[in-house]
Structure formats: C-alpha cells, structure tokens
C-alpha cells in the first residue's frame, strides 16, 4: 500500500448558526477501505459532500495527488476519480443498466443525428458487470432490479468513470444479510484492484469485517481513528458518544397515569416481518430513539392512519380501535406532527389562521359557513400562547421561520383536545430559542394529561426531554430505558442493535 493520494486537511464548514465540520482531516491511500462513523448529525455526510465537490468547505485544503486544489467542483471530483454511491440512488427507472451507466456519455454514431450506439454501449458495460460478478445484463431494465442490484449499477458507473475512490453512504441500510455479504465481497474486490472505498455506516460488525481503518466524527470533529487491530464495537461506541449533555430535564408534575395508547405487535410496510409493541401512558413523554430508517416514522404514520397497519392492533384507553384514516385518528384525539413540516404539516400558501383551524374547521362554522372572526380570534390566542412571531395571523405560513412554522403546526392541535400527541422530529431545522419553547410546551401538555410520543434523532433532545425512552432498530424495539438508565452509550448501543 502506497501513501495517500487523497487528503482533506483541516476542513471546516459552517452554515448560519451551525458548525457542521470543525478542522476535520482525512487521508486515503489507494486500495484502502475506510469506515466513517458517528451519530446522526456528526458531520459524516457533509464531509463526504465536500469530498464529492458538492459542498465547498469554508476553510481547509483539499489535496489530490500531492497538489492543492483551490477550486474544487463536482466535475473536478469526478475527474480526480472520486465517485459517489448515493443513499437515495440517482438512477433512471426508465432506462436499462447500460443506459444508466453511460448516461450523458453515450457512445454515438450517425454524425449530426447522434444516434446511440447500443452495441458499443453494451460491449463497454459487459466487462464491468463481469468484474463485479453481478447477476444482470447490460440491457436489463433498471425497473426490474432490486435495491442491492441498483447499488451495483452505481458502482459499475463509478468504475466506468475510472474511479479511484468510491464513497458509499449507508450502503447496507436497506440490504438483506446475503446482499450485504455480497456487497462486502464487492468491496474486497475493489480493494484488491487498488480502488479505495469510504463508507458511512451504523453497522459496526461490517466495519470490523471489512474496514482497514475507522474514523469517528462527533459534532463535526474527528474524535478518533481506529486501525485494523483496534476495531471492535465497544471501542467504536466509546468514541461515538461522550458528548457533554447539559441536563435541562424538567420532571413531570405527577407520576404517569394509566396507559392511554397501547400498540400491540404493529407491523408496517417497511419491515413486514418485524412487529412493534409499546405503551404510552397519560402525562408522560416517551422518547422514540433510533437511527434514521429504523421504522419510527412508519410506526407514527400507521398509528395516525396515514399508512395501513399490516398486522397487530392499537388500543386507546383500553378499547381496541381501528384507525384507517387520519380523520379517524383525529376524531379520537390522536394527533401527529409530521417530520415533513412543509410537505405534510402545513399549507404554506394558506394564512396562519386557516392552517390552525383546518383540522377542526367544522367547529368554527355555523350552517356550514366559516365564522372568520372566531377563526382569527383563536389563531390570535394561539399566537400569544405559543409565542408565534408573526405580526398578523393572516400572513402566509410560508413566510415564517422554521421554528414559528413548527409552532403553527402545534397550534393546530392545541386548539383541539389532544389525548395522544405524536411529535416526529419536533425541533428539526429550528433555532435554539424556539427549541426550548417547544420543549416547555411539551412538558406543559404532558402535565395537563396528554400522552406524548416524541420521535427524535437528536440525542441531546431524547435524553434531555423524555421521561422514558424506547429505542428502535430495524423495525423492532430493541429496548426501553427508564430515566436512571439514560445515557448516550445505552441509547446508541440499542440503536445499533446491540443489547446493553
């Protein structure tokens, strides 16, 4: 193994109000397999976007083959042999494998007609397919391929560009065990050919299995590097955690009451062979932690009736209920504040007042006509109560900041009678001040008897706000934690599927 050909030196990246990367350095030698580890939000993807030329760093140096690059774009990255295999694959469903691999670089004939030379195209792709021992042909339509096969198509595309370094962002997160094993073989093959691989993963066993080196990021900083001999899950978890979590926990006014929501063996579409059971009690905030993609959002959507429950059941106050539409959930006092605020939570073009009244509009109406002064009065009251910073409730919601938009979604449900409130990523994209106000509101609601299920990928939030934590891992609950057992270590341990 020769020296590094690719060096990121002291890379910094700041966004308004957030330091995403803080003096991170990373170097890669030909044929080296590097695992990039860290919690949600540690800065792994940002670092890879810098390497791919998608994001320009705020400071630091990118050095390739010993030469410093002052300007570095996606085109430069591709020319330097750096290829991205994206988490959400960038492929065309309506083309075949060869068409995808050579998209935008098709061999042509026929002069000005620029007809695609399909024979050459296939001839070029065939050896690459053979190199990975993939089980599809150049003319297989992409639509017929599984996710794992599509990933191979992306890798083939990278190889066709003479990639020297392939970046994979959570390549195994949606693969089955045997598919994962195949991918590990492919990675070993690339390594043997002198191609480097950087992969982001949460599956520590894979790291042990195939990485030469693991680099751990936390809060935008490199906190450690483990080499081949030091690679074991315990050491990796130790490095990933250890952040100082300021304790701002406000205990509930009274111990939690009876079980309000009882989810028994719920199965959702993402993990059709896994079932989830959990109980939510009156007056408690139950944090639902886990890695992105562990099935938390799907569970919330199933409880709220957005997507069907494939199996299992839900009871409310001891009564089994069937919830097949959001309307049915709302009528029973189960409200969801979705993760996708702009797409599902709000009508951005509608005024604040009309967003707040929407789920309960009938109660603002007499003879079917909306009493607009009552609607405005209520919106004004909610604006006061939740400190929504807007001069007028007739303003369009889309013009507000993220924090204030989130308060409008909250106001919608607080105008009604919440029994169960499911809050999916309550403070994503929200500034610090508004965050605290939302936490205060959650505690107030819980103390008033609402049962709250808070899905969060923010460790600080999960530990600082919840009364109890349930951790999900790949479609099932991997463990519950009581307040005394709260620690970053324990949550992470469960989130990656280990037991405590």
């Amino acid at each position: 193994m020769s020296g590094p050909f690719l060096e990121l030196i002291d890379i910094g990246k700041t966004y308004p109000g957030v330091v995403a990367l803080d003096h991170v350095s990373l170097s890669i030698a030909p044929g080296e397999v590097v695992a990039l580890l860290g919690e949600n939000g540690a800065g792994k993807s940002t670092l890879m976007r810098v390497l791919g030329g998608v994001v320009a760093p705020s400071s630091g140096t990118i050095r390739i083959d010993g030469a410093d690059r002052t300007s570095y774009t996606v085109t430069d990255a591709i020319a330097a042999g750096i290829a991205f295999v994206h988490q959400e694959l960038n492929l065309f469903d309506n083309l075949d494998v060869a068409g995808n691999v050579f998209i935008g670089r098709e061999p042509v004939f026929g002069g000005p007609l620029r007809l695609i030379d399909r024979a050459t195209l296939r001839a070029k792709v065939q050896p690459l397919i053979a190199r990975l021992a993939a089980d599809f042909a150049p003319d297989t339509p992409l639509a017929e391929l599984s996710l794992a096969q599509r990933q191979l198509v992306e890798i083939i595309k990278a190889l066709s560009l003479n990639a020297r370094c392939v970046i994979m962002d959570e390549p195994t997160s949606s693969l089955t065990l045997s598919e994962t094993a195949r991918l590990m073989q492919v990675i070993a093959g690339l390594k043997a050919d002198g191609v480097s691989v950087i992969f982001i993963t949460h599956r520590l066993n894979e790291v042990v299995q195939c990485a030469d080196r693991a680099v751990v990021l936390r809060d935008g900083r490199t906190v450690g590097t483990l080499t081949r001999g030091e690679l074991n899950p315990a050491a990796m978890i130790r490095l990933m955690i250890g952040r100082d979590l300021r304790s701002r926990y406000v205990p509930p006014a009274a111990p939690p009451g009876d079980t309000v929501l009882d989810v028994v063996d719920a199965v959702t579409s993402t993990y059709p062979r896994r079932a989830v059971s959990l109980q939510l009690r009156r007056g408690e905030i139950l944090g639902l932690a886990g890695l992105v993609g562990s099935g938390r959002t799907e569970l919330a959507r199933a409880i709220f009736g957005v997507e069907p429950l494939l199996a299992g059941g839900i009871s409310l106050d001891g009564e089994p209920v069937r919830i097949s539409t959001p309307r049915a959930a709302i009528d029973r006092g189960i409200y969801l504040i979705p993760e996708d605020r702009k797409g599902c939570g709000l009508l951005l073009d509608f005024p604040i007042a009309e967003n707040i009244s929407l789920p309960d509009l009938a109660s603002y109406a007499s003879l079917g006509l909306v009493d607009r002064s009552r609607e405005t009065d209520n919106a004004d009251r909610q604006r006061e109560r939740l400190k929504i910073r807007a001069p007028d409730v007739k303003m369009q919601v889309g013009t507000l900041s993220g924090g204030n938009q989130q308060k409008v979604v909250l106001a919608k449900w607080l105008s009604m009678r919440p029994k169960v409130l499911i809050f999916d990523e309550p403070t994503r994209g929200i500034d610090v001040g508004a965050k605290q106000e939302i936490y205060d509101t959650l505690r107030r609601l819980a103390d008033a008897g609402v049962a709250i299920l808070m899905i969060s990928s923010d460790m600080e939030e999960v530990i600082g706000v919840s009364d109890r934590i349930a951790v999900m891992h790949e479609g099932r609950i991997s463990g519950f934690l009581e307040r005394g057992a709260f620690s970053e270590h324990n949550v992470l341990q469960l989130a990656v599927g280990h037991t405590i």
Partner: protein
Amino acid sequence: MQKKDLSLLVLILVVGAVVAFINPRFLLVGNLSNTANQVGMFGIFSIAEAFVIIVGGIELAVGSVIALLGVLFIDLIVNRDVDWILAFALIILGGVAIGTVHGTLVTKMKIQPFVVTLCGLLIYRGAARYYTEDATAGFGYGASFPMLEWLTAGRTNVLGFPLPHSVVALVIVAGIAWLVLHRSVYGRYFYAVGKNEEAARYSGIRSDRVTISAYVICGGLTALSAVLIAMYTRSISPAVHGSFYELYAIAAAVLGGCSLRGGEGSIIGVVLGTILLQVLQNLVNLLGIPSSLNFAVMGTVILIGVLADQYLVQRRKRAPSARGQAAAEPAPATLERASAE
C-alpha cells in the same frame, strides 16, 4: 374583490370601450342582451369547470356532456312525453352520475383526470350521435313548452333592458358557488386539497371525498347549462353541439385566476373571465374580423393576459420578500444538523 379580479374587470371595460368606439352597435340593447345570454349559459359550465380545477383536476368532457344531456332532454320531453320538470330532474341526475363516475375513477382508481375526462369526451359525444342516429334533435311543429321556454330562454324587462333568464340562473349559481367556495367549510377543503393533498390529509380532510364532490358539482352544473343551451338553440346536431365548450370553460377559469396546479381561483374571476371571452367573441363579429379568426383572437388575448399576470407576480414576489424578512425574526438557523448529516 381580489386585485386579480379587479384588473380583469378593467380589461373588460377597456376592451368594451374600444369596441363601442369603433362600432357603436356594440352598445345596442339587443346586442348587449344577446351577449349577456351567452355569458349566462357559458358562465354556468365555466363555474362547473372551476370547481374541478380548484381541486387540482381537469374536466374535458363538458362539451360532450352538454351534447349528450341536451339530446336526451329534448328526446324526453318531445318524443317521450315526459313532464319537463321530471325530465329536468333526470338530466341533472345524469350530470351528477357522470361526475361521480369521473371523480371515482380519478380518486379510487388513481387514473389521471386528463385521461378520465378525455375518454368521457369521446364516449359521450359518440353516445349522443348514436342515440340520435346522427340526426338533428329538435322540437317538431307545434311542440310547445311555454313555461319551460320562458324559464330557460325567456327574458324579463328590467328597467328597459331585456334580461335573459340564463343570466339570472348564472347569478344564482355564482352566488351559491361563491358562498360555498369562499365562505364554507367545504370550500376551504377544496382549496386545501388542491393546494397540497398530503397536508390536507394530515389535517384530517377526506381528500378523496372532496375531489369526488368537485366532479359531482361540475357534472350537475354542466347538466343545468346543457338544458339552458338546448332550450336556447332549440335544435341540436349531436356531432358539433357544444364542441370546444370545455376549452371555453378552462379559458374562463384560467383568466379568472385558477391555476391548473390547483388550489387557486375565485368565482368572481371565473364570471369575469366568461364575460371577457364573450365580449371578444362579440368584438370579432362587430369589427368585421373574419370569424375564422375567432379562436385565434381569444387565444392571443388569453396568452397576453397570462403573460401580464406572470410579470406582475414576479414583480410582486421581489417586492414583499424584503418586507417579509424585516418582519420575521433575525436570521434563524434553519439548517438542520440532521440534514447536514
């Protein structure tokens, strides 16, 4: 009245003034009354179309439905001696049924509205021609329905102006439609579903039901205009009767501020859009423009109108963005750590 509606009104007055200046016959009571009659008939099915467009759909079968239901109506009262009140009710029911089918295909079978209603356009036209064996349907000698004729095609003298009853019908329909769309709970749902169906669903709105009801309202109102138009023309050649009417309807709706993306538009705008289209039609006749250019004139004016509107929207967008920033709190950190990840 919204700003958009106001500028449309100004445009109508300007076009009207120009036509009147060049050819004063425009202002003759007879001409105005006839134009008003056209507005009455076209306005009703344009409002019908607007309901569907507001929920984010499109209805292309309007003209064919007008032909089919018109033929059926005349057949029922002339050849089958059905009492006209019963016949009228049956025709409205027929329109409602067609709307229900369209709405159900769009929501439950998830077929694109354009495709569903394009098939409707073809099917109903064919059905109308087959039913009459392609012959013109009309009233025979001596067939007379004084009450029905007075109600639908009659005119009442109001302060010396013979006001067509189709206009009265339009005013009633528009009034109710305005109340429903702009003031009622259900109207709010129409706009919410048209704007963002997903968000509407998350707020507990049964979006399928809302969408279907838009097609049902559209079908019912189209049936009403079918009767008015049949009684006005008094004879229907099923191959051409009502053809292109869906395009008049869509044009009026677009002029009236409806976005084909859904969630926008006002009833006043749609009525004004209908008026503008009919004034333009009148302009072609009165200014000696070859009637073959009829559609070309309309198309040009709509295009200019939409371009001007786009220009104004762009300008307005630039202006209040500065204001909005001043009003919002100081530069919130909207970048989420999770998305940076």
